């Protein structure tokens, strides 16, 4: 099928950071997720859990709590500020100082009018949500001790606050505390330690559920202020609680990495009196579960072990479907690796620095499957630290290896690499339109730089020796305000394709510097696009795993694409749970499309028949055992290779060798801090 020399790269020490907070917007089905470094990620649950947007973090911004207000996203952190985000430009819109010390929690009332903020100094501050900003309204009665957690009663008249050793219920109108619920401390040695009410939920029937640092989930009657039931869930802390929309199910995340479900069930069949009963326990994490979201059909959890886990509730979804499968999202859905095809260089993007590596070399020859001796070891050429406190949001390396560019939300930098790529010179004079970019891309001849900017526009910059020059701004006709997350310049330098979060794919003619065409909009977001250098067909892969091929010359879907749509993709292909993150072509054989996701890479041979629904999909091994003539009968278009796992990037170099960048998850977990001690059986 195609044999490659493979550079198996395992020296990209990418380390995702811990998940701190989560907020689920059930109306738009978007999950906002905050990481320990301040980065925010937006996942579209309606679109196959695709990581739609990433807002890079900032030094000193530790997000403690997240909150959706309609389409607007607010966060608060220990720096004492409330931040609203601009989801179109992927940056903070503004920040408001709360003047109450570090903020532990924020909560919006169900009407979406008041934002309550719990501060270190013991105040609950109310902010009014205005059209463009938020305005401080009032303080509730100040308490001794910090406010750790907050929850509004759905009516909006009461608010419960979890504190040290107690829970307070406030009347939101008068600001008076109406109840004081004392939370018991842990037993034994922890008796002298204050108990922290990490999380609290106020239900519409005036039941309050609290989770605390003594490992208890307690159910309180909010009207009388009495304890109804205590569930000792763990020896350690209960860190997060989340309740389903219909208030029939509640989940609690613990330091042990377990998520415990409680259900509101009548104890005897056909009777109305219901009570909260502990039911299932999910253990999908090795470390603290810091953030939880209870969606309609699933429990979403994340924590110290950096993975986002979507655990469908089997009583809510159809069994044995794609929906009922457990999903773990550990690697980002966008590429952090840039490969200079001609120079054999790799650029790795970290939040606070960039690394430039030269690939190793080998002159050995061997049978397929052999590992070759390395003549020259791969070496790290440059480690480039970013300037400023904003984290890097995108970076690019020119194919010739002569240019390097990165951008943060506030600044853009371009570097010239010289002297065999080991000296770096900053290009100082940059066009002033180029303030920041969401995505960067160099043209294949390294003469142009494309930087996506606001409103889906792309700035074209010409790169000449001493300086660089602003050439043009390419704008789509649709007037979409969403950011561009994919850029691809064709090999012949004629086309530039862009994809944005509105699922639009625009193709620009670079000779004429104007929009060539727009690919018909498909409902799912594109995850990878590429233009075939020989046929000028655009191949787009979407989050729902669909593949389209669009002829740029005819401005219509190609025959192959239509056939594929008509026949449908194989169910095993559709069941994969990670998106395709890169599309490449084999210059030797234009009919070959190379794709990869986290767990496999695949070569699609367009000349071969498509697999039928009943044919075995992963048939490489059976094919190998067959004699030559029969192979052709049984082979189909999809050739899948699972030899490499946890792929960050698969790229084809000029010399037809394949670069495979792996980041084994085991390496990530081994770098995590030690989890809380748990008694293991038979130890």
């Amino acid at each position, binding site marked *: 099928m195609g044999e490659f020399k493979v550079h198996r790269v395992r020296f990209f020490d990418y380390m995702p950071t811990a998940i701190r907070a989560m907020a689920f917007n059930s109306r738009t089905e978007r999950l906002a997720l905050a990481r320990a470094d301040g980065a925010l990620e937006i996942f579209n649950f309606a679109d196959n859990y695709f990581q739609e947007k990433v807002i890079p973090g900032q030094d000193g911004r530790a997000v403690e709590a997240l909150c959706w207000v309609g389409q607007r996203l607010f966060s608060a952190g220990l720096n004492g500020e409330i931040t609203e985000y601009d989801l179109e430009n992927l940056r903070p819109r503004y920040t408001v100082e709360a003047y109450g010390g570090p903020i532990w929690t924020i909560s919006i009332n169900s009407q979406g009018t008041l934002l309550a903020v719990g501060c270190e100094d013991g105040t609950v501050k109310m902010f009014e949500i205005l059209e463009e900003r938020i305005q401080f309204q009032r303080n509730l009665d100040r308490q001794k001790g910090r406010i750790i957690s907050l929850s509004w009663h759905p009516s909006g008249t009461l608010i419960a606050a979890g504190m040290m050793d107690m829970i307070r219920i406030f009347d939101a109108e008068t600001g008076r505390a109406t109840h004081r619920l004392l939370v018991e401390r842990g037993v034994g040695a922890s008796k002298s330690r204050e108990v922290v009410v990490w999380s609290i939920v106020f239900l519409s029937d005036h039941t309050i559920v609290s989770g605390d640092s003594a490992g208890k989930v307690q159910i309180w009657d909010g009207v009388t202020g009495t304890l109804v039931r205590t*569930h000792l869930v763990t020896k350690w802390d209960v860190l997060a609680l989340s309740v389903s929309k219909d208030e029939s199910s509640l989940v609690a995340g613990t330091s042990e990495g377990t998520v415990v479900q409680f259900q509101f069930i009548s104890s*005897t069949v056909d009777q109305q009196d219901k009570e909260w009963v502990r039911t299932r326990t999910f253990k999908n994490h090795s470390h603290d579960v810091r953030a939880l979201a209870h969606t309609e059909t699933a429990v979403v959890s994340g924590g110290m072990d950096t993975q986002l886990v979507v655990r469908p509730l089997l009583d809510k979804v159809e069994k044995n479907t794609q929906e009922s499968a457990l999903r773990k999202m550990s690697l980002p859905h966008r590429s952090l690796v840039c490969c200079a095809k001609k120079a054999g260089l790799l650029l790795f993007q970290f939040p606070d620095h960039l690394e430039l590596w030269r690939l190793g070399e080998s002159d050995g020859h061997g049978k397929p499957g052999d590992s070759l001796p390395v003549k020259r070891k791969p070496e790290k050429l440059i480690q480039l630290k970013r300037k400023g406190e904003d984290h890097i949001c995108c970076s690019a390396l020119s194919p010739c290896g002569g240019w390097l560019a990165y951008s943060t939300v506030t600044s853009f930098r371009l570097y010239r690499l010289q002297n065999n790529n080991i000296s770096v010179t900053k290009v100082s004079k940059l066009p002033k339109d180029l303030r920041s970019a969401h995505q960067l891309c160099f043209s294949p001849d390294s003469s142009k730089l494309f930087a996506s900017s606001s409103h889906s526009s792309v700035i074209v910059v010409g790169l000449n020796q001493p300086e660089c020059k602003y050439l043009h701004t390419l704008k789509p006709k649709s007037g979409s305000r969403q950011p561009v997350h994919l850029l691809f310049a064709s090999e012949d330098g004629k086309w530039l394709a862009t994809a944005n979060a509105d699922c639009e794919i625009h193709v620009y003619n670079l000779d004429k510097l104007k929009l060539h065409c727009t690919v018909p909009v498909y409902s799912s977001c594109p995850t990878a696009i590429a233009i075939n250098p020989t046929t000028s067909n655009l191949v787009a892969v979407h989050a729902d795993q669909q593949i389209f091929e669009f002829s740029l010359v005819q401005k219509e879907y190609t025959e192959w694409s239509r056939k594929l749509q008509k026949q449908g993709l194989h169910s095993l292909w559709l069941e994969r749970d990670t998106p395709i993150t890169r599309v490449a072509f084999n210059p030797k054989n234009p009919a070959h499309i190379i794709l990869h996701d986290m767990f496999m890479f695949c070569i699609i041979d367009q000349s071969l028949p498509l697999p039928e629904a009943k044919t075995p999909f992963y048939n490489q091994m059976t094919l190998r055992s067959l004699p030559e003539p029969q192979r052709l009968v049984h082979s189909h278009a999809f050739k899948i290779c699972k030899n490499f796992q946890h792929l960050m990037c698969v790229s084809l170099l000029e010399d037809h060798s394949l670069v495979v960048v792996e980041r084994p998850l085991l390496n990530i977990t081994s770098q995590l801090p030690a989890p809380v001690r748990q008694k293991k059986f038979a130890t």
Partner: protein
Amino acid sequence: MVEHGDIRVVHRGGSKINFREPVITHDSRYLLCASGECVKVFSTSTEECIHDLRGHTGLVTGVLLKPSNHLQVYSCSADGTVRLWDYTDGILIKTYVIGYPVYSICASANHEGVIFIVTPMLSDKRSDLFQLVAVDLPQSGDQLVEARELSAVLSDVSSNPAAIVFGRGGEYIASANGLHLEVYFFKKQKPYRFSFKEDNKKGGKNTFMCVACHPKDDCIATGHEDGKIRLWRNFNHKKEYTYSTLHWHHSAVSSLCFTPEGTNLLSGGMESVLVQWRYNQESERDFLPRLGSAITHITVSPDGALFCTSHSDNKITIIQSCVKVSAVIQGLVKGESVRTDMMVDPRSKSLVLNGKPGHLQFYSLQRDKLLYNLDIVQQEYIHESGLEQFEVVKAAFDASGSWLATVEERKQKDAELELNLKLWAFDEQTQSFVLNTTISAPHEARIIAMCFCHATDSQTTMLVSTSKDGHFKAWQLAAPAHTEADEGPSWSCDFVGSYHGLVPECCCFSADGSLLAVSFQEVVTVWSPASWELLTTLSQPPKAVRDLCFGRLSCSKYLLGTTANSLLCCWNLLTCSLEWSTSMDISLLLADPLTENMAAFCCQAGSTDLFVFKPSEPRPVFSQKAVCSGKVTRAVFAPREEMLESCEESSQWLNHSQLYFLTPYMDLMTFTTKAEEDRLMASSKQLVIDDRVAMTPFYLLLGKHRQQEDPDSVSGLSAERRPLPQCSVAIKELLQTPAHVLPSTSFLCSMFVQSLLISVTDGREETKHAEEEMESEKEEEDSEGEMESSTQRQEQAPLGGQAAPTLTKAQHRELKRVKKLDHSWFAHLLHS
């Protein structure tokens, strides 16, 4: 050969008491458990077996208290009947004939007159598919009732009774089988089915092992093979069902039980730990560890005061609800295999075989009770899979029972065999065996056979052991050579014999101890133990000799042997020639020590036949085909305590001793005659030993009175069984009708009282004996439950009157008072 209809193979003594879960009665005083073909009634306080409920002709497969009458109990059996008993008196009230083997039984108070039984699928009997069937019990006064109204409730259920249980108030029934849980709601007539996959990714085995239902809430607890307990709720929804998981056990949960109030859940399994979970507060739990062996069943008394666990070593432990063991009922311990032969201890006449690991057990078959365990290995037993430990593999008694020889061995992988021969002397003072000599490594290889010299009159005792190392050794008791004052005689090797380097197989002493026969493959050598001279060799090529046996008494001139090519040979030792031989594949040959009879178990076509014969006679005394399925390898003749006087030719061999054998499924079976069975049945009808009154001095005094009263009393126990010719037909009918169909006692009272009036009028001196009156009153209060029957019994004898005239209320009261009167004073007077 004629089949002997009156000799039957039965379970008698030493049967499993852990086969099915026991039942504790409402007053927590009795424990009922299925044991072989009868139901045993134990006292929960004294651990004694009070009586047996006999009547079933097959294995009893379930015991269940009748939900509507807590003094009656159902038992079901593989013989296709369900019987209703009065367990306090051991009276069979009714027999319902189902017609299919019944594997378990359950019932609920909500379903009056209906019991639910598990039978094989009616369509084809041989398959291992079972169904749950509801049986309408016909209301009729007859003793024997055919219950043919069966209606299937659930198909494809497990035959394990722990897997089917009624839910809250009998509204639904939960059944687990394999990987499925099925809940059937009677009101809606709708089953809900929940399934698991074979095992999940983490390697947990999800197979259901047992089910329990919460008595108040709709919560089903299921135990699984991987040690998890799941609590199911909302199971009246196809999809919205939910469960929580409790995990403490590391291997399969074999039993689950809720306490009657539903506050606690008890679970047990392999770990021999009883775990008590708080319902709805599952993180709190109590443990009762070190229960000895794996828990197989757990039951709770209806008042919640007692828990009871059955164990895999045939033991029932009674536990107070404060999690404290209060009593242990131990049956015959049977592991997966019996390594030692079954033997009979000549002193105690008890059956001796392997018991607990490293122990020999002494089990009295007559009393059906474990006498004691003798620790042979004297090492701590560590329970761990794959760990090899010392095991008792051979044991032998000498004829008088004063010496016991045991062999223990341990074979670890890649290590040499460790062997110990131990000799134990019976100590008269402590009435148990005391270790006399330990011979470590008596042979270089495994010991194959061992026997004592049988002669009772000989001065020296001799033990012969044969081993795989090609030698046989004779061991003799000898005084220590160098005289150390306090050391008694000990055992030492006397002779080492071998024959052409062949491996000796079995050895046998003649009845008088003058000859020793040792077989070396196909050659039988006969030695004189006095001079250790090889007297003669007998051989029957081509195959090796398997078993050797000398004849007894009049047949002592014969030596019998079986060979591997299924030949039974009989040599005459006087002529040193083969007397006769016959071709049969004998798996076990043994001689009755009290008669000339020999028993041979023949394995043929998957089942075992028994032949009992005398070596001198060509015709077998008795033969029975298909005694049991599989091969019998262990059997023993146990001498009877009292001889049976059977004149029938075919059953004469059972007069002196009884033949017990172990089936491949480790069931201890024996042969019984019709006459013997009848006698047993009669004796079981005897009065129950009354254990209500504690053994106080006061009780002893009272007991003395009663004993004295007995011989001349008109209301004695023996009199009860005597026919009462003078009884009117009406009274007789009244007495023989089961108690539960009789009208209320107050109604009947007048009739009895009328008869009392005649017999007691002469003895009205109650004032002097107020004390005794009070005492008997008290006793009567104690026995509320038994009141009806006991009063009947007391007044049975003096019955003789005609129909009673109607009495006024005052008269009535007077008579009641008179009834309570104790007459022992009268007897006392007569004696003194």
